[in-house]
């Protein structure tokens, strides 16, 4: 992208440019005029000439080069209109934008150049090659937080739980079997009629458990009655259920009242 290449025009190698804007900037500088008084129209002509020349050499030309060419052609048509018309003002505004973009790029080129001229660390100046680390790290303390503890606990429980076979919660219900045992033990010591309630376990807590125990004890009583081990009796509906050990068969007169 030397000046020579640009002035030759037709033998320009576009590959050397970083895009249409780069070429435009180079052309603008090639005018060797005060950049402030550069003619946008002349610039457009030059660009279009270069692109035309390049197309003669290689037909494939990147789209952005052609898009820029089309846009510049449009811009030129606007700039050539008599001043004052709406289209002409549109063109001037567009020329302003182009000029601003070129100025920006030019400024960045200059900035890049300025940076490149600085004494670069590791290139032109060197810092200490073996800096001394005067920092001691004390790792004796522990970093602990409650969230971590809880997370760890849940992880442990989940893992532990997943490896265990399912064990149902032990029943606290007073079963028929329990009632049978208790009835068997207590019945002998009660010679007369006793209420079913008397055979409930002492430790049963909630009301539900108490009712369940009552049902179990009744079932156990019926079971024993069927086997002839005891007798049950209820005077009226929902009245207390009484039970008694089966007496020797010498006294059968109460059978009629048996449940």
């Amino acid at each position, binding site marked *: 992208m030397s000046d020579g290449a640009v002035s030759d025009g037709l033998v320009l190698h576009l590959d050397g440019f970083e895009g249409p804007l780069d070429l435009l900037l180079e052309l603008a500088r090639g005018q060797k005029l005060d950049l402030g008084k550069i003619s946008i129209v002349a610039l457009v002509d030059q660009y279009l000439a270069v692109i035309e020349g390049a197309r003669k050499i290689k037909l494939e030309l990147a789209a952005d080069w052609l898009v820029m060419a089309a846009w510049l052609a449009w811009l030129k048509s606007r700039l050539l209109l008599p001043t004052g018309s709406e289209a002409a003002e549109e063109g001037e505004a567009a020329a302003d934008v182009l000029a601003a973009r070129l100025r920006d790029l030019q400024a960045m080129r200059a900035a890049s150049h300025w940076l490149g001229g600085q004494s670069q660390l590791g290139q032109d100046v*060197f*810092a*200490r*090659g*073996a800096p*001394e680390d*005067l*920092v*001691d*790290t*004390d*790792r*004796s*303390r*522990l*970093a*602990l*937080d*409650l969230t*971590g*503890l*809880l997370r*760890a*606990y*849940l*992880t*442990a*429980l*989940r*893992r*532990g*739980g*997943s*490896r*265990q076979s*399912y*064990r149902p*919660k*032990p029943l606290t219900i007073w079963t028929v079997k329990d009632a049978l045992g208790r009835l068997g033990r207590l019945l002998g010591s009660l010679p007369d009629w006793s209420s079913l309630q008397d055979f409930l376990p002492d430790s049963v807590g909630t009301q539900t458990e108490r009712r369940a125990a009552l049902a179990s004890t009744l079932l156990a009583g019926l079971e024993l009655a069927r086997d002839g081990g005891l007798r049950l009796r209820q005077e009226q509906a929902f009245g207390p259920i009484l039970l008694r050990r089966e007496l020797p068969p010498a006294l059968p007169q109460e059978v009629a009242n048996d449940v």
Partner: protein
Amino acid sequence: MSESDFGEQLRLAEALIFASATPTGARQLTQLLADGVDVEAVIAALRDRYAGRGIEIVTVAGGWQFRTAPDIAPRLRRVIQVPRRLPRVAMETLAIIAYHQPVTRPEIEEIRGAALSQTTLDSLLEADLVAPKGRKETPGRPTLWGTTPQFLAQFGLPDLRSLPPRGDLLVDAPPIHPPAEPPPDEFPPSPVSC
């Protein structure tokens, strides 16, 4: 060699020793300095120049190097605390001990569903986070473990009752194994006095 030339050699040697990542040897200096310059004389002059200053030239394996003056180094030293994290296994074990204390090692293993290494328990003991709390009166009389006051301090807890209740943690109530005896269903399990 003129005095100003020698001064220039000093500048070069000083810069190279400064910029080198490793000690600068005589061979490197010879390569850099003008022909015929006495390397030892250059070093001696530099040593003089830095005498009594904050930095000095020392002879180390393979050459010369700048070092902070020994009397100053301790004053520049800064201690940065970088707290360690507990390994995951230790954290889990600690959590189980905290929530199930007093608890035996086999019980911890059953809850975690994994074996507990002595190293893990040792690390918790060493950090003074757990301590033995007597023995369980079962065959083998295994040691019971509980947390320490240091545990509370580390987690910023006033007491063990300040641990979030297990019920708040376990919405989906994963199956917690019921120990042989009725489990302490409500939590916290008999906060051990610390």
